């Protein structure tokens, strides 16, 4: 016959430890741990999960389900979710500026405003290259990697030629700004690749239209390069020929 032991009832109370009973040896629940979270019924949010952030601010501010990585966040920054800047700003993509720069290039006859391009960024060119690749894909040609490689080589070439021609008075053209310029002035080529979807393949009409767009790109690129680098006036024709070579290269991809 088993001996009956008087087992006290198991009660978890958040209140004072005076209600705690001495747990009998070998049975019963473990003593209430010192780090047990407060009862969720006391807080405003109905939170059934016993997992709470250790950071008091984050716990107070978050209104949704508790974060899984709450521990390191609490230890790392201490800022709450609402204080974080929006994702685009965090990545440095200024969509307003990109839109303004695009519009300034789009007018073929009115000259582009060079002060807009004083702060260079690569996200606009990335968008243009992506859309160029997409239009090429619509025409049945898979050129994404090739376009990326050719833009790199072309920017290096243009940067090299430009800085050698300007000598000491390079202004403030660096490789980043050069890549950004070449990428932005690809916009007419992107339009050309869209237009070429509707033109008969390989005809003289495509060639003529292509020349117009190449000249447009060259004009904008030369103007921006000359303005931005503050010393390009006497070498304008030489730089224009280099830009023309670069954009003829991309027209090759579109026409053939």
């Amino acid at each position: 016959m088993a001996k009956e032991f008087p087992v006290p009832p198991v009660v978890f109370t958040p209140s004072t430890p005076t209600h705690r009973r001495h747990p009998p040896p070998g049975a019963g629940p473990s003593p209430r741990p010192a780090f047990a979270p407060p009862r969720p019924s006391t807080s405003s949010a109905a939170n059934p999960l016993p997992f709470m952030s250790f950071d008091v601010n984050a716990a107070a501010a978050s209104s949704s389900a508790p974060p899984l990585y709450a521990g390191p966040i609490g230890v790392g920054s201490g800022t709450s979710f609402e204080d974080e800047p929006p994702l685009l700003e965090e990545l440095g993509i200024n969509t307003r500026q990109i839109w303004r720069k695009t519009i300034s290039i789009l007018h073929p006859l009115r000259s582009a405003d060079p002060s807009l391009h004083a702060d260079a960024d690569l996200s606009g060119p990335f968008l243009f290259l992506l859309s160029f690749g997409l239009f090429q894909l619509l025409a049945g040609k898979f050129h994404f990697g090739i376009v990326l490689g050719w833009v790199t080589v072309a920017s290096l070439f243009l940067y090299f030629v430009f800085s050698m021609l300007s000598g000491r008075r390079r202004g403030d053209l660096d490789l980043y700004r050069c890549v950004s310029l070449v990428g932005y002035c690809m916009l007419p080529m992107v339009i050309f690749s869209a237009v070429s979807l509707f033109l008969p393949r390989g005809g003289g009409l495509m060639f003529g239209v292509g020349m117009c767009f190449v000249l447009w790109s060259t004009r904008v690129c030369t103007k921006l390069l000359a303005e931005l680098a503050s010393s390009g006036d006497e070498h304008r024709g030489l730089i224009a020929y280099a830009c023309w070579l670069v954009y003829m290269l991309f027209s090759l991809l579109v026409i053939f």
Partner: protein
Amino acid sequence: MNPQANPFGSALHGAAPGLIRTGLGVYGEKFLDSSSEFMQSNYYFQVNSQYVRNKLKVILFPFLHRGHWTRITEPVGGRLSYKPPVQDINAPDLYIPLMAFGTYIIVAGYALGAVGRFTPEALTLQFSKGLLGWFLQVILIKGLLYTLGSSEAPLLDIVAYAGYGFAGTSLAMFARIFWSYLYYFIMPWFCLCTGVFLVKTMKRVLLGGPRSYERHPSRNHYFLLFLAVVQFPMLFWLGNISG
């Protein structure tokens, strides 16, 4: 899900484009400043449009060049040095060879497309072929100068002289796009012109050297004739887009 799962917290907010920017800027500077001697001298890019026009006329029609072919020297800091290309039509520059090479690539691309054989890989092949051709020309001229005794012409001068041949080649290839028989008239003409140009320039380079030009005149003439004659197969090979 909370997008706050960034273990670096606020450290990299907006820093990524800045990193790329400074990285590219520094890399560009390093790329140009690596051989600072070349960059600071900047002799070969002191050109202007007028020089480019006249030099192209000299390269493509060397018979019409009325003046002399020697480079003008000026005393600089106790040493005799040559005047930069802006002031001297006979000075070599690197702008024209670079642009001529680029034109050669573009025209080859259009020529390939005109016969329906354009692919980006074919263009890359043509680029490599052009580089190889340029390199072979450099070896040829350097070997010639070495055999004839004057070996202190700077390497970039020779690179420039070797690159001038691309101007005629690209013009002939451009003509070929429109009428293929035109190529067989224009190309020999430009080979001849490039040959004459190189011979006249090399004669001046050799005369400028210290020794032994007058000692073996016939040997020198045979070598220079060889230089002119070998332009024909070299430039025909470069202009051939099916290889």
